[in-house]
């Protein structure tokens, strides 16, 4: 086949959410994909390419949207891409089982004048629901080709690729949408006003417009429509004089129809769609309850809804935490052997200087091994989330969660990032992007660190096995629950102070239930995981390099009379130890403070630090060399923490204190410096106060009263400070 264009043709996939757009994208491009962000916004950008008959085609997966009104970042991104990048073809994926609602976006794409090829997905579900669609008739009305695809079964991508090539060779011109007569009159006036400004000649019967001029005129009609819809982006572009003229026309439309102008346009679009549906769709069983309706009667029922929800959540949690555990050990052992031991052996064989060997094996190699341990829980949590999303249960779970999420001022959808938080805080903060309002995004992000991430589990297990060998599971479960309770406490406090407004209005579609495809889930998971690994690895490796450097840079020890040299890390630990004394960490137990510092870089580093520092000579008070190493280590830790209350206070601190640097970096990326500093400071203070209150209440002494009052005063000050922030926030908004 001859090349169609001088350059690679660009095909944009556009459609509503949950119509199988990503499945089609994966089927077309396979693994030739790149995932990133659209410039300036946190909306996922996916592009890929495929080869067909010797030609390469670029495919852009636009965000799933309901309209091009530009009310959400997703809508703006899609609209601007089509207008500015001018794709050679738009592949409009439409859910055949829900044609009316899906055609609303199609109509808007038609108004843009872009060449379209429509793919009707879920045709099998439409048939089951008793719908029959006359494709030829629909195609005639719309002015472009309409084809059927069944994405869940054996999908013939070659047939679609052939149609794409044909449509690129002969781009179709979509039919024009006409509005109510009065709207058309006023639209025409605004349109002409813009044409005049752009010096585009008007078309006459004797002198028809050339193709590129036609495109320009088509875009101007779209611009005029956007002005009637009071689109701020387009209203900004016109002069004050034109703005006045447009306002006059809008006023006339609103007076005639008794409705706001944007609503008039939306109503009229549906008027066109209703007429079209009557013409091309035949219903065998009108009013029939669908399969999804029947399943929902059980899964969302008053009595079964909540137990099913908790069971599914427990399953996700179990898969993320328990199922990933053996893989963590294997990956850690494998990567440590490869990147730490082997690299060290190689560099020693090459007689490399000690610092170089240390840098590449312990710092860089250790960092890679640490990132490796993140992969299993994140992989499993993403698999679970993909299954939930693709099957259609995710939206139902958000509906059920909404009942209790609203009590802390968050919409139901916010439970998804919180759930992801049990795997890792970094993707959890990323997952807040699914929330529509910026308020909800910030609020949910601030609560995600309270969900004990997978990296905290080794810390809980390590200390619980030493101090509570008989009841370790109860202690671990209790710490998870305690984190959730503190999230509720913080949520209520933030709701009363900073985020006084109600959560965003909840309008969410309940998609039909589907059986997810294996390929779809694996590809979905793979791209999310790849994105996480590459995004987080830079920060984590950097942090681990710094921490390793701090552990070898020696400075004089100001805490000892002998003035022997100690590492910067150890000195830091000794400096903060007095602050930790009300939590039961006495000055000889500085290793615990150092572990907390290393935990800022990666939570599982706490275990590593404790293992290395408590087996050191200083703390091995009477370690027996014949003893098993862990037994010696366990005994040392037992001695360092005076009692089980101190160990539990330490675990409470670990549960609540600042998330790791990777999560802080993500928070900074998403919400800026202010919220990052707030999260860091608030979580550390809260962790200190709660752990201190716990310890002092259990070991009650004369000084405890002083400490408990201090704790209460600090909590009061936090509340007062949050109220001030809230008031300032109210004034600015």
């Amino acid at each position: 086949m001859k090349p169609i264009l001088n350059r690679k043709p660009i095909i944009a996939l556009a459609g509503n959410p949950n119509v199988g757009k990503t499945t089609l994208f994966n089927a077309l491009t396979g693994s030739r994909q790149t995932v990133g962000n659209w410039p300036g916004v946190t909306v996922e950008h996916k592009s890929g390419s495929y080869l067909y008959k010797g030609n390469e085609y670029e495919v852009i997966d636009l965000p799933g949207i309901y309209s091009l009104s530009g009310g959400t970042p997703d809508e703006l991104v899609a609209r601007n891409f089509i207008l500015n990048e001018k794709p050679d073809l738009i592949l409009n994926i439409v859910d055949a089982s829900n044609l009316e609602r899906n055609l609303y976006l199609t109509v808007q794409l038609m108004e843009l004048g872009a060449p379209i090829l429509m793919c009707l997905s879920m045709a099998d579900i439409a048939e089951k629901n008793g719908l029959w669609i006359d494709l030829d008739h629909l195609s005639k009305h719309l002015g472009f080709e309409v084809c059927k695809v069944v994405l869940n079964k054996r999908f013939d991508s070659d047939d679609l690729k052939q149609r794409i090539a044909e449509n690129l060779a002969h781009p179709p011109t979509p039919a024009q949408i006409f509005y109510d007569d009065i709207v058309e009159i006023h639209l025409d006036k605004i349109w002409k006003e813009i044409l005049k400004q752009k010096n585009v000649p008007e078309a006459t019967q004797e002198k028809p417009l050339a193709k590129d001029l036609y495109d320009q005129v088509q875009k101007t009609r779209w611009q005029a429509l956007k002005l009637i819809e009071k689109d701020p982006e387009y209203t900004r572009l016109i002069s004050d004089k034109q703005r006045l003229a447009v306002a006059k026309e809008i006023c006339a439309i609103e007076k005639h129809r008794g409705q706001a102008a944007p609503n008039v346009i939306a109503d009229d679009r549906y008027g066109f769609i209703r007429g079209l549906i009557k013409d091309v769709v035949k219903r065998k069983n009108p009013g029939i309850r669908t399969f999804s309706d029947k399943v929902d009667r059980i899964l969302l029922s008053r009595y079964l809804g909540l137990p099913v929800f908790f069971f599914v959540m427990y399953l996700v949690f179990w898969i993320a935490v328990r199922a990933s555990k053996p893989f963590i050990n294997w990956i850690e052992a494998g990567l440590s052997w490869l990147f730490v031991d082997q690299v060290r052996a190689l560099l020693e064989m090459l007689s490399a200087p000690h610092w170089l060997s240390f840098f590449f094996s312990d710092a860089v190699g250790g960092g890679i091994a640490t990132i490796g341990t993140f992969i299993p829980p994140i992989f499993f949590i993403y698999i679970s989330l993909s299954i939930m999303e693709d099957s259609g249960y995710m939206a139902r779970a958000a509906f059920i969660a909404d009942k209790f999420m609203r009590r802390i001022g968050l919409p139901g959808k916010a439970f998804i990032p919180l759930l992801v938080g049990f795997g890792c805080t970094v993707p959890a903060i990323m997952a807040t992007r699914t929330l529509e309002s910026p308020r909800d995004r910030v609020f949910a992000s601030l609560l995600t660190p309270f969900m004990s991430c997978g990296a905290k589990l080794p810390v809980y297990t390590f200390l619980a096995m030493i101090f509570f060998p008989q009841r370790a599971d109860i202690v671990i479960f209790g710490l998870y629950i305690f984190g959730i309770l503190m999230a509720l406490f913080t949520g209520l406090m933030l709701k009363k102070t900073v985020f006084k407004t109600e959560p965003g209005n909840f309008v969410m579609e309940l998609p039909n239930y589907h059986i997810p495809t294996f390929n779809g889930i694996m590809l979905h998971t793979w791209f999310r995981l790849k994105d996480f690994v590459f995004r987080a690895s830079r920060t984590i490796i950097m942090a681990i390099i710094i921490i390793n450097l701090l552990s070898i840079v020696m400075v004089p020890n100001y805490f000892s009379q002998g003035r022997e040299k100690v590492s910067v890390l150890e000195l830091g630990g000794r400096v903060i130890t007095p602050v930790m004394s009300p939590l039961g960490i006495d000055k000889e137990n500085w290793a615990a403070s150092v572990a907390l510092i290393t935990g800022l870089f990666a939570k599982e580093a706490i275990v590593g630090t404790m293992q290395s520092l408590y087996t050191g000579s200083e703390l091995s008070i009477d370690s027996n060399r014949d003893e098993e190493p862990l037994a010696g280590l366990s005994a040392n830790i037992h001695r360092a923490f005076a009692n089980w209350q101190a160990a539990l206070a330490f675990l409470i601190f670990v549960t609540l204190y600042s998330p790791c640097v990777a999560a802080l970096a993500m928070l900074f990326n998403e919400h800026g410096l202010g919220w990052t500093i707030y999260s860091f400071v608030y979580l550390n203070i809260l962790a200190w106060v709660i752990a201190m209150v716990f310890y002092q209440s259990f070991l009650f002494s004369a000084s405890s009263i002083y400490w408990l009052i201090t704790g209460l005063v600090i909590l009061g000050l936090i509340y007062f400070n949050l109220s001030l922030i809230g008031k300032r926030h109210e004034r600015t908004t």
Partner: protein
Amino acid sequence: MNARRKKKQWRCRLAQNSGQLSYKQGDCVPMTNLNQGQSGTVYSNNDLHTIERGIYIGAKITILRNETEEPNLIVAVGDSRYVLDRRIAQKIDVRID
């Protein structure tokens, strides 16, 4: 005053859930006042967001779930099923079929 109004709303919802408060065909009421299983035609809606999702004037809707203690309703609009915030549904008037 606010508490009294809330109490009244709550009583109204309770009556509605127990079936004591029922509207007859042709009545024009906020969507939240419809009982589970009742159908209607959208009479007025000023929210562009929901109009764009298909809840336009003249659209046929059926209430699939409306529990007083829940903040949301589940509404069938054509072939779509939506979870709709009670605050939004309150502003949409429906003529009962």
